[in-house]
């Protein structure tokens, strides 16, 4: 059974972003999701942080403060091994969700 919650989708987006970019701060994640999705997906910027905090508590990501290219302090997030595994599961679960949705739509 696929998880159908929106939160799961946001988690998936963040995890995928981090796996593609290696290490990134919150703002960067927002930008990446926006560009990578060809401007189709826009994340509510505030809601990113509770999700990041929760993922950090769960041990999917870890973080450290560093300087950006423009010399500003920012908190950089990185996937952990647990996070990588979580990503695989989330992807699989999302595939199923999409498959299920398609089937539903076709049926109608």
């Amino acid at each position, binding site marked *: 059974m696929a998880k159908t919650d929106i939160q799961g989708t946001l988690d998936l987006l963040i995890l995928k972003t981090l796996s593609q970019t290696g290490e990134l701060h919150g*703002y960067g994640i927002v930008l990446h999701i926006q560009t990578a999705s060809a401007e189709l997906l826009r994340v509510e910027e*505030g*809601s990113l942080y509770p999700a990041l905090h929760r993922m950090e508590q769960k041990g999917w990501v870890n973080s450290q403060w560093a300087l950006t290219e423009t010399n500003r302090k920012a908190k950089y997030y990185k996937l952990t091994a647990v996070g990588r595994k979580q990503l695989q599961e989330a992807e699989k679960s999302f595939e199923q969700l999409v498959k299920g949705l398609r089937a539903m739509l076709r049926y109608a």
Partner: protein
Amino acid sequence: MSLFRRITNLFSRGRLEREIQDEVHSHLDLRTAGNIAAGMTPEQARRDALLRFGNPIVIRERIVAVDAGLGVEMLFRDLRYAFRQFQRNPTFAITVIGTIALGIAATVAVFSVVHSVLLRPLPYRQPDRLVVAIGEMRKRNTSDLPFSSPDFVDLENGAKRMFEGFAGVRTGKMLLEHRDGGMEQIRTASITTNFFSLLGGKILLGRDFNQTDAPAQVGILDATTPTRAAQNTAPPAILSYEYWQRRYGGSPSVIGQRLSSGANNGSEIIGVLAPGFELLFPPRADVERLPDVWIATRLTYNNADRKTLMYRVIGRLKDKVSLANAQSEVDGVAAELRREFSLWQTSDCHIQLQPMHQYLVAELKPSVVALMGAAAFLLLIACANVANLLLVRMSLRERELAIRNALGGGRWDLVRQVLAEATLLAGAGTVFGLGIAWAAIHELSNFALPNQPLLASVSLDPTVIGFAALFGIVAATLFGIGPVLYVSRPALMTVLRSSGRNSLLAGGRLLRNGVVITEIALSFALLVGAGLMLRSFLKLQNVDPGFDARNLLTFQVIAPQPSNPEQRSAFTRKIHDSLMSISGVAGVTAATPFPLADQFFPIRWGTEQALGDSSRFQSADYQVVLPGYFETLKTPLLTGRSFTNADNTPERNLVVIDQLLAAKAFPHESAVGQRILIRLRTPEPEWVEVIGVVAHQRDTSLAEAGREEVYLTDGFMGHGFTTRWAIRTSGDPASYGAIVRSRLAQLNGQTVLTEIEPMDELVRQAKATTRLAFILIGAFSVVAVLLAALGVYGVLSTSVRQRTSEIGVRMALGATRIRVFSLIVGQGLRLGASGILIGCAVALCLSQWIRSLLVETKVADPLTYFGITITFCLIVALASWLPALRAASVDPMRALRSE
């Protein structure tokens, strides 16, 4: 560990908040910079960044809430807040905690008794499979009989399908002569060789008995005389751990030694029992709890022995065998025995099985259950009271709660806050309650009822403490639920709209009145219980036991008995005379069994009619006495004469009977000079002549009249039968102990003197159960009534405060102070009346439970109910007095102006 991390986050809260803030700032800065780079003005860029982000404070809260989802943070905050509330109002907190502590203490103390008496399994292997088998002579109205040796053998052989086996035991006392010439009285248990293996007694040293230790007696099956205990080799013995330590200092070399140098007691010691093995039987079964020495018994199989009932029998059911199936198998054995033997047939004897635990606690159970009920009531009342206090306080805090609600404190937050307060109060109350219970249990064990084996082990063990915690949670729920209902009402907002008055006090009134009525009803029921116990106790105090217990010293004299009757008679005479010569002693006698000290056993008696129809035999208790018994005990002689020294021989078949027996045997004529048949010293009943009728004595219990009784002389039984002596003294009987001891020592160095007790003390012990129940239920109900009075007071004073302006108006319109006063008292009495009505119903239903504790008192004793109703009305009136006085002293002008 994410859980661990969340909890550590709680403590590094400041750091975390700062970090979140930094990150939010960093994000906003980056977005602003990005916007500027995209061509916005700095202001526009900042505005856009904030808009995209949303409210930073809310976001921050949401991040923190990820931790708080765990609830730990909230709980801490709520508890801290609750604690601060109590600090602000310590009197309130102390009152509440004290009330709960009382309730919990009573419940826990009584529960510890319930646990050790009713719940804890007996200390044997698979105790739920053990049953006790008892004989029941239905025609003679006699039950709980032990088994004879041949009956035991028949039962064991006849019930093999449902039973793993049966074990028999009988206990007694024995004089043991040691090599150094000293005498010692020890408690002995004669047991079948399978006894320990059947019950699960562990052998510490040496070995257990086996079948070859006591081979069944090969006798003539139908000998005319019972088998005599003449032995060439004594059966082996196993020592109890405690006796082994006491007598032999725990030396392992004891195995193989002889128990005593005397020929008769020369049992070889083959083993030592592991510590703590007890024989758990109810006091009425007359079984020693802790025998010193266990001796293998030889079972005889001689029909003449069937009249000698001596073995207490325990059976072990096979796995999955139900009690009903076992009973029907045993019924078959009994039916067979009734066909075969006339004693079984004429007395209509049956064998009854009872689970061992149930058999043991049958007498104790009603009192324990009643006490548990009383304690539970007390706890309920305590909870009701606390609920009331919380409700009143809640209503005073109404505006605070409403404001918190308006400022965004959700209803759930308020509920949680109330629950936190309840938990904190209940927790503190439980801890203090446990402390009180611990002290009470110590007191209780001093108080313990004599001879109740299971009461010896009452203690605060982990199970009891666990249950105390459970009671605490139940209490918190009970008194938390009212306030929770209260704060979760949707109308809280209207408080703000109303003026300064606590308008919503009126809303909580119904709830509070309900709580107070419950309180009154419960404490009324409890007080009825106490009242009934008081009546019983007074009845018991005034019971005429048929003897005068004052200035009477009793003691047991055990001495080696000479083998010939004349010597025994002379020895008894010597003891008598030497005691009589003590100055201050006005009378000396001896009897076995002795009232309130020994167990009584029924014998068979009948009149002429029984000769032709042996089913006409009935049961009566017997007592063997020395001449002078009735005079020394001051038992009134009703007609005829009492025993003289000339009657004290085996040849004179003379008896004295009590008034109950006289009324039963010779209802229409004088009993003196009549003959009756009794079966005691001979295998078949013999004729004896009645020379006198005395008042009935209460022998085993003061509370119950007991059986009819026949008295025989020591001489009739062949002399030396009576061992418990009594002397009537002038002045304190206890002070005669030393001189009695020295006189007896002069008489014979081998005499053992034990159980020296003033008769007063025996009487006191006989009243112990009733007194204990009375004191405990009484104490509980006094506390309960105080709490209820406090509840009434609380409700009325809140009501007065809330109606101050109304009262002002009434007085301004001409109501007198008396009218106002009676208005408030009337309100209290209405509450009281409803509570009493409900309480009456509750008491009538529940007092059935204490029926077995009552002595000559009806469950629905009108006097008790009437008296307690009056008492309660007074108490309620008293509790309304102060609030009413306050109401009456309201100054109408001020009350109206404050509006």
